[in-house]
């Protein structure tokens, strides 16, 4: 039981990080960034290359890859979203342009690392097992949960306590009003993409470490889970994304334990579907149905 909870929290921490980045961009731009999963994948590959070719320690490779992911995020915004701003169809067009960027990223990964599964070299991560009150827990799992929690807290601090955070929240509230208040909206959006992609990238590295298998299409399964998480949590709601992310991790773990692994993926979407029907705005979100 205790072991299942740790397993669930561990899986959930990766979902939560991924979904936080997703929902941050949605909150600011009202747009889904379908390239998010490709950044997740690229960053995992980058960390792997830093560890296996440059022989960096993973604790150094992780932040480096995370920052690189952030920079890629700025690029994504520049290429796929900024040119569409102000267009009437920017919602659907943004879905497609970010999908095009994801396709390009996947092709790059395919060219550089090949279609097969890549793995971190042995000894990259601690492989010790810990005994916690009867449960056997991997040390790695606890480290990953710890890193994820630290990043969530860091983001919360950033959004609540810093000038940039206030500006991001202002732009999310109303881009027009923020502009009137003298906020450089373009800069705030670019920085939001940096933060969002850094979180997604970090999730990718942790995912790669946790399952020790990275391939060019590794982001796709997480992408749909991430969608489910941000909807269940309420679009644009950060606490919602964290709660729903951990919640999904726990539910999936217990589903596997109880009904077998073939039902694991179905759970996320069943929950998603029910939540949308019963409470369209998600657990902690804005209205999803038209008022007028």
């Amino acid at each position, binding site marked *: 039981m205790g072991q299942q909870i740790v397993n669930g929290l561990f899986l959930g921490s990766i979902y939560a990080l991924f979904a936080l980045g997703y929902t941050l961009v949605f909150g600011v731009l009202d747009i889904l960034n379908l390239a998010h999963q490709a950044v997740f994948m690229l960053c995992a590959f980058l960390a792997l290359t830093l560890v296996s070719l440059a022989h960096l320690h993973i604790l150094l490779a992780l932040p480096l890859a995370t920052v690189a992911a952030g920079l890629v995020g700025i690029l994504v915004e520049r290429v796929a979203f900024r*040119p569409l701003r102000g*267009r009437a169809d920017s919602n*659907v067009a943004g879905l497609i342009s970010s999908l095009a960027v994801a*396709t*390009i990223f996947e092709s790059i990964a395919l*060219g550089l690392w090949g279609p097969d599964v890549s793995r971190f070299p042995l000894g990259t991560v601690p492989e010790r097992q810990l005994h916690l009150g009867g449960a056997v827990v991997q040390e790695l799992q606890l480290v990953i949960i710890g890193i994820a929690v630290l990043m969530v807290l860091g983001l919360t601090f950033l959004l609540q306590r810093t000038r940039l955070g206030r500006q991001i929240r202002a732009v999310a509230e109303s881009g027009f009003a923020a502009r009137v208040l003298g906020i450089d909206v373009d800069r705030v959006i670019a920085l939001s993409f940096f933060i969002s992609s850094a979180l997604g990238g970090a999730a990718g590295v942790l995912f790669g470490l946790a399952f020790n298998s990275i391939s060019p299409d590794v982001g*796709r399964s997480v992408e*749909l889970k991430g969608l*489910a998480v941000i909807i269940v949590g309420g679009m644009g709601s950060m606490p919602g994304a964290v709660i729903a992310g951990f919640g999904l991790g726990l539910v999936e773990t217990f589903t596997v334990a109880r009904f077998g692994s073939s039902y694991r993926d179905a759970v996320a979407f069943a929950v998603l579907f029910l939540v949308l029907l019963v409470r369209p705005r998600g657990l902690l979100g804005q209205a999803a149905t038209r008022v007028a």
Partner: protein
Amino acid sequence: MIAALQELFLTWQSAIGFVGINGLLALSVYATLSCGQLSLANAGFMAIGAFASALLTQHTALPFAAVLAVAALLPAAVAVPLGLPVLRLRGVFLAIATIGFGEMVRLGFVNWDYTNGALGLVGIPQRTTLPVVYLLLVAAAFLFWRLRGSRHGQALEAIREDEAVARTLAIDSTRYKLAMFVLGAGLAGLAGALDAHLTFMVAPSGFGFGRVVEMLVYAVVGGITSFIGPVIGAAFLTLLPEVLRVLGELVGVEPGPLRQFLNGAILLAVILFLPHGLASLPRRLRRWRERRKGVALAA
């Protein structure tokens, strides 16, 4: 030599078949887009049509026309109870709820032993022929063509532009949205059946998120201001990889990653620089040429 030519013809024959089937899929997404709704349930509807038709072919002696009818009507029937609650959602929320439905259908088939789980059904007799594919595509296009400019077509446009206002003009937007949702489901189911009976097999992995995104991309790249765009987009994007492959062989470039890269780059270019899709290209060229002529006359 003759064998090689034959093989070439066969590969292109199936490509031409896929152009038609993908055209139907693009129209199925266009159905809901034409009243402003981004619904992504169509891979799920396609799966229902594909599996239902394959089972009917394998277990009954029904003529193909009857099998196709069931493949269209069954997903359409599912779309009614699904659409009523789901179409209340707006924008991205509708998209995601329908993605959720599609994934549930796919995972349902993965877990269903009767259809062989993740492996799916194989050895389906090839009953799809090019005339059948194109007859159905033309019929669907004809329907959209006649809808355009009719009372109903104008109501759909009004809903796409501003649903709340359309409602204040006595347009029952829920009914229209549901009708197009059901039509899209039927077209997707039809395409699923044609696909299953062209490729000999159906597997749940063919109906994932990627599939429905593909349909959306056909429609948007072609242009969604009229029904012609999705058909053009499907043809262009279905043939593009084939053409790139042939070109790659001629130039001697390794396929795979580069082809995927070009696919993505072309998609990005169309969406950024041709907002109304490929279908608007002739008009744009004409305008460009007129402007050049104007400049020449002025000079």
